[in-house]
């Protein structure tokens, strides 16, 4: 290392006031770095096109699309409030920038630092028929609210015989790998919540989906959790319709047609899979159908089954650990619905059964080469 150059730079640092917003999450550090993790993205973003007949569009990254969706939701529904830790100044991922100025402190506000409080408070607002949109700063920190989500939000309608519900609650939480987030800024906890009847769980793969799903979840008469892959907030840019539109909850999307292998993923992983599909087409001459599951609960069994009946092979890939990851549920269901069509055992390419490690992230993720290898194996079975 050029120690002398480094020293001279340091001498110029008089006060720790160097400003550079959000350099670790979600933007990436300079590309000259030789260290694993930093500045490395494990996927190439594949933008989607705006839905047909959705009107004028504008180029937006994912945090802007979410900001736009929040603003439209609050405009349309006077009872809607948006709250969470640090949301007043715009949120640590900038999703709520300008909203407090626009809608006032009564409707967009910071809460004390307490996730169980945030979700419980949101349930109460929804109980009264008002719309609650809550932000949990990181999905890794949703667990203090686990009880409120799993025992309260999810079961309120059931336990009251439909008398009470908190369907107007939507919880947003940034999830997933970011290159250098380590144990507690990288997790994908969707499977914990998928195990909870009463909740709806969705994961967008980019700006268009993020906004559409947000609008749908806010309108949905059941409590919803949106896990937003944080690495996409800035990196993912698309032409997003500026008006209102919804992305149907419970419906998967075929993002790439193919005939030999079905690849299922959600969030960032969809982009890995699209890249893999191109790669195997080029290197192995294999045609993959890529499905973005979009909704984890209730998931689109029909879409996946239909595809697998056609291809006879299924690979599911997700960042969360293998054991009891949501891929397990898909595999179990599809072997039942497509048993006679399967040409090979269903494969899962996932994060390992370990916590999410900081410096070893490149060896932890179900990256394109692990997925590529899985395709190779499944066609050669």
């Amino acid at each position, binding site marked *: 290392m050029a120690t002398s150059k480094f020293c001279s*730079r340091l001498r110029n640092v008089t006060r*720790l006031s160097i400003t550079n917003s959000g350099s670790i999450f979600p933007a990436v550090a*300079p590309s000259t770095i030789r260290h694993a993790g930093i500045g490395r993205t494990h996927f190439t973003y594949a933008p989607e096109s705006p839905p047909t007949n959705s009107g004028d569009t504008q180029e937006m990254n994912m945090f802007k699309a979410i900001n736009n969706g929040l603003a439209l939701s609050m405009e349309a529904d006077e009872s809607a409030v948006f709250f969470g830790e640090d949301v007043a100044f715009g949120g640590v991922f900038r999703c709520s920038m300008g909203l407090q100025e626009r809608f006032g402190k009564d409707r967009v506000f910071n809460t004390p630092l307490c996730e169980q409080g945030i979700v419980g408070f949101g349930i109460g607002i929804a109980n009264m028929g008002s719309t609650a949109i809550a932000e949990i700063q990181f999905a890794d920190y949703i667990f203090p609210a686990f009880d409120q989500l799993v025992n309260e939000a999810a079961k309120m309608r059931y336990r009251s015989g439909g008398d009470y519900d908190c369907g107007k609650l939507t919880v947003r939480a940034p999830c997933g790998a970011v290159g250098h987030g380590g144990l507690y800024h990288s997790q994908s906890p969707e499977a914990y919540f998928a195990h909870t009847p009463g909740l709806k769980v969705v994961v967008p793969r980019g700006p268009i989906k993020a906004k559409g799903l947000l609008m749908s979840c806010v309108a949905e008469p059941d409590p919803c959790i949106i896990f937003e892959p944080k690495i996409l907030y800035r990196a993912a840019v698309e032409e997003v319709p500026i008006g209102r539109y919804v992305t149907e909850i419970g419906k998967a999307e075929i993002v790439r047609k193919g005939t030999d292998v079905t690849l299922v993923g959600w969030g960032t992983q969809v982009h890995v899979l699209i890249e893999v599909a191109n790669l195997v087409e080029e290197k192995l001459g294999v045609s993959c159908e890529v499905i973005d599951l979009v909704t984890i609960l209730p998931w689109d069994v029909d879409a996946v089954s239909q595809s697998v009946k056609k291809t006879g092979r299924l690979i599911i890939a997700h960042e969360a650990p293998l054991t009891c990851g949501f891929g397990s549920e898909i595999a179990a269901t599809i072997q039942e619905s497509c048993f006679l069509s399967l040409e090979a055992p269903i494969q899962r390419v996932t994060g390992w059964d370990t916590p999410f490690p900081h410096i070893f992230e490149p060896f932890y993720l179900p990256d394109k080469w692990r997925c590529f290898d899985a395709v190779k194996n499944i066609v050669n079975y």
Partner: protein
Amino acid sequence: MVTQQCLQFVHYSSSSTCVVVLASSWSHEIHTPLHCFSLYLQLYHSFTQLRLSNWNCLHLVMRVTWAKKIFNQFSAQCLIHKGNFTTSATFGPSNPKFPIISNNFTDELKFTNATSYGSIPIYRILGSATEDEAMANIELEEAKYIKMYKDMVTITVMDKILYESQRQGRISFYMTNSGEETVQIGTAAALSLNDVVYAQYREAGVLLWRGFKLKQFMNQCYGNCEDIGKGKQMPVHYGSKELNFVTISSPLTTQLPQAVGAAYALKLAHSDRCVAVYFGEGAASEGDAHAAFNFAATLDCPVIFICRNNGYAISTPAREQYKGDGIAAKGPAYGINTIRVDGNDIFAVHNATRAAKEWTLANGKPVLIEAMSYRIGHHSTSDDSSAYRSVSEIAEWEKLQPIARFRQCLEKYGLWSEEQEKEFVSSIKKQILSDFAAAEKNVKPNWKEVFTDVYYNMPDHIKKQSEAMAKHVDQYKEHYPVELYKQQ
């Protein structure tokens, strides 16, 4: 009227009850102990009339409480015991004994709030009448104070270098301690090495004081093969069992109840050790904080809660974090001995912690310290605090210059000089930079460490995954940065 009620009651209960407990507030009927005695006689008379005198071993005990000053009320209890039977009943307007609280009654309808009490004062020494007295002892503990000062300076230099190195993309993340060095070092110096520390993440000074080497800080920030944590956590998540500093975890406030449990175990083991647990005023809002305070108080745990109140939790100012008289006010509410200190006053912080430690060990009970300070730096390298606070606000707090004030004190007593300052700053810079360079050069741990330390023994399913990945990496070498990691 009361006598009437008593008679009715005795009449009613005589056939079935052996014991009568009478507890009442008769402010209008009984004004002196004499009145009370006459009531006693009347009651005794009624009992006798009701042939209670036939009972064996009849005792009638009347207890009168004369709450003269405050409520002008009496409470009286008649207790009659027969055999080993005991039943009781209350009648008339009563003064029940609710547990734990002091049972003062009032007929004034009034809500109590933070303004009903005076705000808990901020303990300080510098600039106070006792400053000279405190300073007088400074020479007696010269070595300690010099180390305290040096460590504070070291933290500021290390912060600058590591912060800047993150800016250059050399490490992935960093959090500075600026503005809170006094709280860190002042408290740390009052603890023994065998006391156990649970920290949040802005307590690097505590760890430095305990003997963590500069290169150990750097190794952790780089997650290289000499990092104790084997590169598994983000930078600043230090830990060292050797130094009784439990490895930091990002999820806030989880360390609080854990620290209480640790203190309980130490107490049960009859050790002379206590636990110190650090947390921010933001973290104090989590449910775990409530659990910890309540457990520590009810289970009598020798733990010192040290709240670093630096005014912000990322962008959220303290005024949006809590109402009332701050974090300190929670202490007495939980039954915890509490002190609020000026976090910019090294002597106050140090004294308060010393006293807290002495008290917690002598009494086997918790103490809460709220150290008032200000987070001079950004929350972390992910944050730009100009988005939510003004430059002039920061400048105002920077004027306090707690480290410079400490230096002045040391110089005043001839314990430190300009020359020493220059020499120390330049040597510590040199050392940090060379340790930094060494840490940067060092390879990462072997990548298979992904799979270790999940369990004590690696279960088969993880072994299989490890083997599968090894095979994969071998096959696709060119796509993995294996050269940055230690070879087997």
